[in-house]
């Protein structure tokens, strides 16, 4: 087991290096550099000025040299400054953007989990009932609806039609003080984006929970347990649920990174200043340092979640061995 973990951890390093190389190379292909702005406003700008400044800013070097230099500093934790905001890119991403994403994605994740597990279980236990069919249909709806469109429709219904019952976006109203009003304010701003963002996972996980529950319920040891006269409720909670939830852990673990970077559509519709939108904007305006630090963070997150999901599975299910 330990050898396995070490091996997996060692694999992470070359993978991250490779990903960073690919991403840096792709970003470097984009046009636009810091001298552009200087040049546009200065008609007296000569080619000599241009060359001098390019050299000065280190932009005369080919991209792989710049990559090497970037890497050298990145491993020391220096990801360079953000071109848009002056401040260090890492600081901008981790202080100004990540917490917002954690809030939105965290709540969405929680909501999806809290609803999907009981619904999935219930619908599996009452297979072929009206409830089961309703749940199934809702699952299909959930995985088929474009999130951003759902968001727009929610805004129309709850913000436009009601004349601002709920805010149509953004994170908070500035100037509110006091614990309770702040809490309510955040909650109001969270409702619609969480509803939109959690829809997909809600559907996927309910469906998954249902099928994995169905599988477990049919297994022999449950029949045995029932035969032994245990109450049905006890059977479900003590044995079935625990085993059925296992695969869900893996699935949830694997979707976490998605919640971080893939929320760009939700963030755009609801004007939520999160990571997804930060990456999107950084790529659009050539803020390489911000793009790189956030992309590397998410890649690392993906790798870590993959590993953790595998480990969680292994710990929970002793039958699985990794040698």
């Amino acid at each position, binding site marked *: 087991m330990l050898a396995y973990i070490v091996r997996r951890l060692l694999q992470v390093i070359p993978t991250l290096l490779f990903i960073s190389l690919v991403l840096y190379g792709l970003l470097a292909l984009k046009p636009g550099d810091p001298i*552009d702005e200087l040049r546009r406003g200065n008609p007296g700008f000569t080619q000599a000025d241009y060359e001098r400044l390019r050299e000065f*800013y280190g932009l005369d070097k080919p991209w792989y040299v710049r990559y090497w230099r970037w890497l050298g500093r990145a491993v020391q934790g220096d990801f360079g400054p953000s071109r848009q905001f002056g401040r260090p890119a890492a600081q901008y991403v981790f202080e100004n953007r990540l917490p917002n994403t954690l809030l939105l994605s965290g709540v969405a994740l929680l909501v999806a989990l809290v609803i999907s597990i009981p619904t999935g279980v219930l619908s599996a236990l009452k297979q072929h009932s009206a409830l089961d069919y309703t749940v199934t249909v809702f699952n299909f709806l959930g995985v088929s609806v474009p999130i951003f469109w759902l968001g727009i429709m929610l805004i129309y219904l709850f913000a436009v039609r009601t004349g601002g019952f709920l805010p149509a976006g953004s994170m908070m109203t500035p100037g509110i003080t006091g614990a309770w009003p702040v809490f309510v304010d955040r909650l109001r701003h969270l409702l619609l984006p969480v509803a939109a963002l959690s829809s997909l996972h809600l559907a996927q996980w309910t469906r998954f929970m249902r099928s994995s529950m169905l599988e477990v319920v049919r297994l022999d040891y449950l029949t045995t347990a029932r035969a032994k006269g245990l109450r049905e409720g006890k059977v479900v909670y003590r044995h079935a649920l625990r085993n059925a939830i296992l695969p869900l852990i893996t699935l949830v673990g694997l979707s976490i990174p998605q919640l971080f970077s893939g929320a760009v559509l939700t963030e755009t519709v*609801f004007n939520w200043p999160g990571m997804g939108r930060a990456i999107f904007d950084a790529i659009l305006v050539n803020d390489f340092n911000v793009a790189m630090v956030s992309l590397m963070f998410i890649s690392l997150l993906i790798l870590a979640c993959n590993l953790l999901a595998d480990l969680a599975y292994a710990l929970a299910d002793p039958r699985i061995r990794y040698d």
Partner: protein
Amino acid sequence: MRNIMVLLALLSGLALAVLGGPTFNNLVIGATQEPSNLFPWEGAADTKENVMALFNIGLTFFDSNGHLMPGLATEVPTPDNGRVKVIYDANGDFVRQEVHWTLRDDAYWSDGVPITTDDVTFTFEVQRTPEIPVTTRSFSDLIEEIRVLGLKDFVIVYKAPNLFYANIAGAIGLARFYDIAPAHIWGPIYRQVMIQVKAEPGKAADIISGQLLGAPAATGVDPTKVIGSGAFKFVEWRINQFIRFARRTDFFLAPPGRAEEYVQEIIVRFIVNQPTLISALLAGEIDASDDIALAGQDPAILRQQYRLGTVFVDPSGFIEKLNFNLFASCKAAADLLLGDKRTRQAIIMAIDREDLAETVYPGAIVSNSFVVRGDVGFTENLNPWPYNPPGAKALLAELGWADLDGDGVLERLTEDGRAVKFELHWVSTTASFRVRTGEVLQEFLADVGIRLVVENLPGSVVFSTEYLNHGSECTWRGIVEYAEGGGTGEAPADPLSNELWAFDYLKAPLSQVSENIPLPENGFGGTNIMGWNSPQFDQLRADALREFDTERRAAIVAEMQKVYNVELPTVPLYERTDCIAVRTGLVNYRRGTPVARTQFWNPWEWGWEQNGARSVR
């Protein structure tokens, strides 16, 4: 269940509660763009111009009538008050221009330090350092020297005529936002950065953007370091959320009546997404919009929806234009005869610009000039180029275009015998009114046999020099559409907004290569991205730049517009307007004229009528 009911009641209750506005005697302004930093020397974004104006004031400022008023200076220098001297030699040729400024005695930085000539000389030193990114050096390059006469008195000596020696927004030749920066704050930072840059030239870019643009004084990480000269002082900046300012009690300009009756706090909320901003406005979460936030919105429809206040429309000073690739070296453009003025004339006649403006930018006014209405020399006495498809078709036929294969698109045989189809490329940004413009233009031009191929690219691509300044190499090969400042009190001299000249006739031996047309020979510098070269226009421009008399200058500017209106190096579409929403009771929140440059020129006068503020604008 009961809990849910309580929660719902609370939610709906709070939904109606107003957190800004008259109740708290503060003002929440909604903006769709956020400044990148608060560094005083650099930046072109309008939103930075606005936000910086909340806690800074220049030597002068324009009021809502377009009058130049003294800010940090005791009075606006003019030849009449003896503060402006133009010195000519025996032949009557220009030698130098001297402008004498006196700083107000009661001008203090927001931390209480007096504003002195030390700040002025320091600001100029930074402005002149080649490694420091500054917005423009066009005006600072005109400065021969700054003579310090005392703590509050200095003379700026220009080696070439500067007609705009007292204007805001960098025309004096000092910092872009707003003329004078605090030396006691920026001095140590600047010196530290320059030492490091000299020590590690390889890291220069990172040092400058990280430690200069990223200094606490520019990012607000340490609020005590953000110091300004204006009516409000910086309180906090929550990036991507809002920036907050509080009224200064030691500011030298005062509103009528008691200052407590006016807005005490200003919050600018950054809501990138326009629809979200509009909903916040309609719901009363913001009290007013800035001048950019509602761009392209239909004021009539907004007025219908906005029950809490009013919506008014002001001219913006920007003209939306089609820039043509006129370079003979770009074959794709030359094949379409874009360099022939008749082609451009045909295209302007093929577009119903009234209809276009109404559809894509409601409230905008059709323009036939490169100067905006109300500015020095603006003339109506121009060909209005009315919608005239038959005229356009006739001109195109005259140029040898005909639909040879009957597919509805014109063709033409070139001199070397190739058949060319009239497929015209149009490129602009992804702003929604521009996307719509592309679609409308497509239809108008199809009617005269031109197939418009539209492409909407991110602004960062369209405005990158590698793209825009390389038209001679065909990076763009038809039309690029964007807006340019149409004078705004500086026409025609501001080389920033004036993209039409090719050679600087003010220079004694004329340069061999155009200074303003981006070509390989000048390192693709300059703003005349079309490659338009009109000696007649350039001569007039030089004459205007030498003419200190406003009336005579106006006559020259009118001449320039006539040349422009016939040659049409760019096709003017419309003068953009600013649509501004204001909650009932807010007074003096008015720009009035594009000359004022920023909607936020007079924050000390903003107030709520409900709280006793008086309207003076």
